């Protein structure tokens, strides 16, 4: 016979867990805390350093004026800020459509060897260094057009974003509860209609979050842009011309032997950080509003 519940409670040792168990608990907790600190510390140091070094150069002029020639004081990165926005916007448009569509295909219809091949290709792509993607885009787009251009940069960045978006979209779409699909099908909805009006809206928040992560990465990429968008010291918003971008500008200015350029590189880094944070916060808010 097993004792009544009350008796079983009484049979527990009094005074709580023993010393060894409490010590072990404290040790594991301390280990977790140390791990947390190790993760947070570099991030905090990085952000603090960028803010400390970048803030002195931050002014309205930095956002609205063009780079000045060497030796002239002042000037800003207006062309690079706008250029980065154009590049990221264009590559986002390409990558979210292609990547989202591929992810949706894999989740909804992805069976058999072809889907397996697509999945494997996405995985391989994730492991390709960004400079290699830059070289590929140089060969495919820049050489075809005949000169460096913003669209070549956007394509290179889009290729870099694709694997993240494909895999996350597939996962998020798979997470949409089966019961939603069943409800829609039982009402007589054809398959494409179920995907369009039930599955996609339900998965949209996740797709946007994944796209934001990928976009933030793409916004900071430098290597592929050197080989595709090149950079531009003048104002240009044309997609078929070389375009300035913050990462490339930061790269140039940080290497330059002029201290005022170095200062501008720090401020550029701060602005890039702020830009990415602001855009992702706004998109998240927008998604929460819809959902």
């Amino acid at each position: 016979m097993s004792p009544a519940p009350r008796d079983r409670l009484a049979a527990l040792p009094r005074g709580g867990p023993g010393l060894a168990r409490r010590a072990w608990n404290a040790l594991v907790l301390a280990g977790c805390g140390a791990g947390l600190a190790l993760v947070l510390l570099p991030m905090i140091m990085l952000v603090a350093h960028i803010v400390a070094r970048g803030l002195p150069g931050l002014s309205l002029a930095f956002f609205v004026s063009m780079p000045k020639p060497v030796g002239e004081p002042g000037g800003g990165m207006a062309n690079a800020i706008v250029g980065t926005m154009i590049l990221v916007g264009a590559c986002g448009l390409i990558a979210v459509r292609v990547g989202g569509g591929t992810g949706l295909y894999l989740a909804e219809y992805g069976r058999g060897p072809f889907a397996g091949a697509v999945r494997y290709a996405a995985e391989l792509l994730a492991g390709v260094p960004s400079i290699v993607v830059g070289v590929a885009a140089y060969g495919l787009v820049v050489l075809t057009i005949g000169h460096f251009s913003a669209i070549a940069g956007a394509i290179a960045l889009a290729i870099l974003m694709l694997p993240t978006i494909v895999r996350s979209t597939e996962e998020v779409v798979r997470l949409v509860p089966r019961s939603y699909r069943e409800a829609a099908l039982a009402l007589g909805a054809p398959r494409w209609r179920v995907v369009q009006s039930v599955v996609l809206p339900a998965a949209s928040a996740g797709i946007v979050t994944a796209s934001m992560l990928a976009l933030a990465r793409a916004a900071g990429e430098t290597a592929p842009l050197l080989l595709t968008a090149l950079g531009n010291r003048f104002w240009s918003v044309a997609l078929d011309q070389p375009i300035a971008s913050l990462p490339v500008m930061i790269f140039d200015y940080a290497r330059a032997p002029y201290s005022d350029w170095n200062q501008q590189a720090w401020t550029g880094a701060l602005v890039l950080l702020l830009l990415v944070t602001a855009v992702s916060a706004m998109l998240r808010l927008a998604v929460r509003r819809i959902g």
Partner: protein
Amino acid sequence: MKPRAGWMSLATQTRPPSVAPARGESAPPPPAPAASAPGAPPVAEAPDAISVRDFSLFYGAHPALKHIGFDVPAHSVTAIIGPSGCGKSTLLRSFNRMNDLIAGVRTEGEVRVAGLDVRSADVVELRRRVGMVFQRPNPFPKSIFDNVAFGLRLLGIRDRAELEARVEQSLLRAALWNEVRDRLNRSALQLSGGQQQRLCIARCLAVEPEVILMDEPASALDPTATARIEELVLDLKRAYTIVVVTHNMQQAARISDRTAFLLDGELIEIDETPRLFTSPSRKLTEDYITGRFG
């Protein structure tokens, strides 16, 4: 519509009990009930909303339903009972072809629902005429209004005024209108479980089906919400034919006119609910309803 009478008076009704062939026999199709037999004199009752003839369903090589045959008269509630895994839900899902979603399902025999041959009918048309309510409330993550309007929009109704009128009517019929009338644009996920289930019923009523299939519609709900769903079922049978899968025998006894007992994919017995629960003609049925197994 006949009023809901006590058990004893129901026992005098005309429909003969059709007893399924004994387990293990190579089962011939059961005799067709008088109402649909060829050449039979027309009966006063409405034609059967569902008729199942020698219907079998296989998952690959495994038979999940074996030679099922019975009829469901229009404007009645039929309960399907039986232990878990006996094929209750599979049978229910055969009526609107939800089993199509599962790979490797094969069927034999004939099922007619709402005048359509289920196997050859256009599945979209079939599912419009045959609504379904699931075990767990499954409203879409959309507004209450958009949930009910979903099926209407599928039918191509775009006119705002008509949508509003039909959404209101459906919510009224599902006994939910008074609780949600001033928050139709709020998310359906904010409703309680019982309200969500009534919303799902309203969503299914909106496209004016003839038959409503319910797969354990109250098993995820608390007793109060369950009682409201049961009341609703009794109310809805005036206009619709309802088939309810349940493993709650009290519930079957409370809400159904006829009860079918399924075991291991075979229809053991189907009869007027009071008779099945008080004097079942098969020993297996008696054992099950008295709790000797299952």
